[in-house]
């Protein structure tokens, strides 16, 4: 077992930056899309209240006007970490009204690992992590020999809808409240808002600022597609110490304020005449589960205590999911995996332990997710390397946090009020938006896996 005494205390959602990442392939198209300050074009736009908002844009984009290929506009709003029942809580009237005017998918679920980065990537790539290379927030980078956040453009191994729209003559925009989301999507979009101000510790911009940027990017640049992450519900949920007591006091406050921001957005669409030509896809990347301080699982010690495994296992902690990596000799890998599975399964609070390769068809995670995937039960969390490492009560990543809200609303005639029992997932966003915008669907090995939900 390799110990990392200098690790940050929590890696479930807070990005741990460890320097630039080399691009993992030589695709010149994606190379062109990676963030590079020297190639960015900065656009300063007056935001709400007169504050200046800084966007970066693809070269030439500052003079571009959205191609009149279609007048349709698609907006994807991710209410990060929102539970589906919270929209019925009475605290989110704007979201509830938006849902009522569209088609909702009550059986919708996030996909493994139920974390922020992988599910945002699935939304914009339309494929699962074994194809897009992003299975979790945090993983063990075997090349670097350390755990890090999957937040580098080079980590992304699949094309995104943001890029696909540009390739077909449309424009796209990203307004992502979290630094690591801004990082992973790099320069995929035509217009990118670099989140600021960033709240210390949480690494995200408050929703009021995110919505200011959203309104500005829509009104100033009018992209065909805008991808928005509203991070307050998730970030406040993580730190809400009353969550384990079922009070969720802070969380409820965040529901109200985030809902107000959604109301601002809908109002803008209506007042600027965009509503009738738009769809608004609203979903979450995962939901949230709260644990009490004594319901903590730490796998570092029991794995290190096993003579066969000692020094040959790395752990990437993802809140409600732990990813275990065998670092010993390849010839002993299966024996090591079997030992890890047995030991993890014996720990109190563990829900499920999977030999990733054996359940590849179910989990679809790919090698970046390591050798063993461990989920905790509802009301528990992982904390490694020791039980004090993760003091955060709100977590996700495990199956209890899979249910998400997912609905397609807006004023375009294609939108129909109703409810569908079909099990929508985060990979459905790409084909849904593409179909609406009239974009071609890639075929063969590039084909999207999701279903269009319009």
């Amino acid at each position, binding site marked *: 077992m390799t110990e990392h005494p200098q690790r940050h205390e929590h890696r479930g959602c807070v990005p741990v930056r460890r320097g630039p990442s080399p691009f993992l392939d030589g695709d010149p198209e994606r190379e062109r899309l990676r963030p590079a300050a020297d190639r960015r074009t900065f656009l300063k736009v007056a935001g709400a209240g007169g504050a200046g908002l800084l966007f970066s844009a693809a070269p030439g984009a500052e003079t571009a006007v959205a191609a009149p290929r279609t007048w349709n506009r698609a907006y994807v709003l991710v209410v990060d970490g929102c539970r589906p*029942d919270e929209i*019925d809580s009475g605290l989110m009237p704007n979201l509830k009204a938006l849902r009522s005017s569209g088609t909702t998918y*009550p*059986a919708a679920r996030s996909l493994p690992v139920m974390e922020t980065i992988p599910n945002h990537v699935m939304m914009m790539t339309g494929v699962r992590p074994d194809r897009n290379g992003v299975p979790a927030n945090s993983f063990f980078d075997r090349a670097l020999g350390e755990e890090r956040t999957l937040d580098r453009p080079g980590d992304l191994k699949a094309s995104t809808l943001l890029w696909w729209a540009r390739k077909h003559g449309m424009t796209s925009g990203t307004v992502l409240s979290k630094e690591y989301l801004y990082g992973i999507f790099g320069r995929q979009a035509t217009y990118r808002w670099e989140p600021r101000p960033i709240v210390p510790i949480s690494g995200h911009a408050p929703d009021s600022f995110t919505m200011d940027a959203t309104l500005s990017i829509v009104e100033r640049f009018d992209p065909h597609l805008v991808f928005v992450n509203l991070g307050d519900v998730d970030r406040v949920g993580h730190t809400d110490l009353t969550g384990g007591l*079922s009070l969720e006091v802070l969380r409820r406050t965040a529901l109200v304020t985030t809902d107000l921001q959604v109301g601002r957005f809908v109002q803008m669409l209506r007042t600027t005449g965009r509503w009738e030509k738009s769809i608004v896809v609203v979903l979450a990347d995962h939901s949230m589960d709260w644990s009490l301080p004594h319901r903590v699982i730490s796998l570092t010690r029991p794995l290190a205590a096993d003579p066969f495994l000692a020094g040959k296992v790395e752990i990437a902690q993802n809140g409600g999911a732990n990813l275990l990596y065998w670092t010993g000799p390849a010839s002993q890998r299966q024996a090591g995996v079997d030992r890890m599975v047995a030991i993890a399964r014996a720990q109190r609070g563990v829900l499920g332990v999977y030999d990733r390769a054996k359940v590849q068809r179910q989990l679809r995670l790919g090698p970046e997710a390591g050798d063993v995937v461990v989920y905790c*039960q509802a009301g528990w969390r992982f904390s490694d390397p020791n039980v004090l490492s993760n003091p955060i009560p709100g977590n996700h990543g495990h199956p209890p946090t899979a249910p998400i809200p997912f609905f397609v609303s807006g004023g375009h005639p294609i939108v129909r009020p109703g409810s569908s029992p079909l099990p929508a997932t985060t990979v459905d966003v790409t084909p849904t938006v593409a179909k609406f915008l009239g974009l071609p669907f890639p075929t063969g090995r590039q084909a999207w896996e999701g279903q269009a939900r319009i």
Partner: protein
Amino acid sequence: MTPAAPAPGERRLSLPPVPRRTVLATGALAGAAALTSASFVDDSARAAYSSPYFLHGVASGDPLAHRVLLWTRVTPEPGATPGSGRGPAVTVRYEVSTDTRFRHLVTSGTVRTDASADHTVKVDAWGLQPGRWYYYRFVHRGVASPVGRTRSAPDYASVPERVRFGVVSCANLQAGYFHAYRHLAARSDLDAILHLGDYVYEYGPGEYGMGPDDVDVRTHVPAREMTTLTDYRQRHAQYKQDPDLQWLHSKYPFIVTWDDHESTNDAWRDGAENHQPATEDTWERRRARAHRAYDEWMPVRMSSTTALGDGTRLFRSLRFGRLAELSMLDLRSYRDEQAAYPIVDATVSRPDRTITGREQMDWLKRAVASREVQWKLVGNPVMIAPVTFAQLPTALLDPVNDVTGLLPRDGSPYNVDQWDGYTDDRRELFTHIRDQGIRDTVFVTGDIHSGWAADLPYDVATYPLGRSAGVELVCSSVTSNNLKDILAARPRTASLGVESVIKLANRHVKYLDFDSHGYSVLDVTSARVQMDWFVTGARDQRNAGSTWATSFQTLAGTNTLRRASAPVGGN
């Protein structure tokens, strides 16, 4: 209350069609639409009464996308009465058509039956199109049975807009007339009938009738507690000749499970409260007889087949497209004995005790975790909602216990005959629901002779803080005694106090009616599941009306209940 003429007997129960038409003309729901839609059934009823061969009507059940089980009982000669063991082996033809006049046959065939099957006929009619109405009949020696109507289930991959069930349980023939069945049959907007158990009762005359004095509105046949195979067959035959039940069977497919009274009271794996091995043979043999008669006489696939004697597995799932899956439970065959003293007997929460059995629990956990359907409906013979109580006045304890068994004298929070008596199983199931992020699970329940609507909190003590595993909707009894019957009180008088105390101590209980008999209608759409409760009139009067009492619904994703303003459909 004035009891009706006693001992009508099974033949007299099926006498002329006049009462049926009278009922239609005077029943509360006998509007023009109901009369029109029921016309083929009226024709069928006349055929039944004029046919010497099909005295017990027709039925269908367990609808699948491409097949439905069809049932009848043929009486090939007058002496071949149910349970007699007499009568020749005969061949019966079945026909399934898309029209009432059988001009467009979809499938047909012949079935052989004899006295070993009590001359019952069960056949799977294959080759049906999903989500369609069909008409069926049986023919023997050129004489046709009543015409039945049935409906196949939607295709697995389809997205039906809705599915709607009639919901019933606890129909004790001695306690009155089956108004609930008649009023459900008068509707034309259902897809199937969900019967949650206590379809027949085991008691002899005078043992369990109407009210505190056990008045027999009608008298059971045979005139003794059923214990032998002949007894069980004759009792089923008697119920199958009830005109209201016949009408309902002919109008809709049934999806059934048993509770205890199909064998005997408070049954468990190796015995029953109402079984005396010294005088009633071994429990194994008695239960086998009950199960054999049930297999013969009910439109259900035991162990997934229509064959008799090939197994008694009753728990099974039925799928309604992507909208819902219905998992029907058997909570009598595998359970451990009920705890004797609820509050002082820690056995209620012992992990080695079970109400489902291991195999059924694993199957149920897989079923509710299905990603293929949105709504996970559970046909649940006994209540799963936890029920705890503040102390009630002693004067009320015994009557409440007579009806529900809910209130041990020491104030125990447990009814040991329902899931409260097997809390480890409930905890395992609820934990599974929470751990797997399962939503939209709805338990539809019978057994307790009262109407309930309840959330299913993970932690009763802190609720409504905290979350709910799903909801439970409990239908009232068709005729079996409820609290006001035991108290001989006027409706909505003595029970009100009890209901208030229970709801006060159990904040997850949203609705409770200890006084009413009737039926429910369960309507499932993607957006919500709603149950409507209907109350029927005096049990000892041949014709009585039906009125809507209340409705509750759970919105998708919420796992909680709220009151609904109006019932669904109704025509």
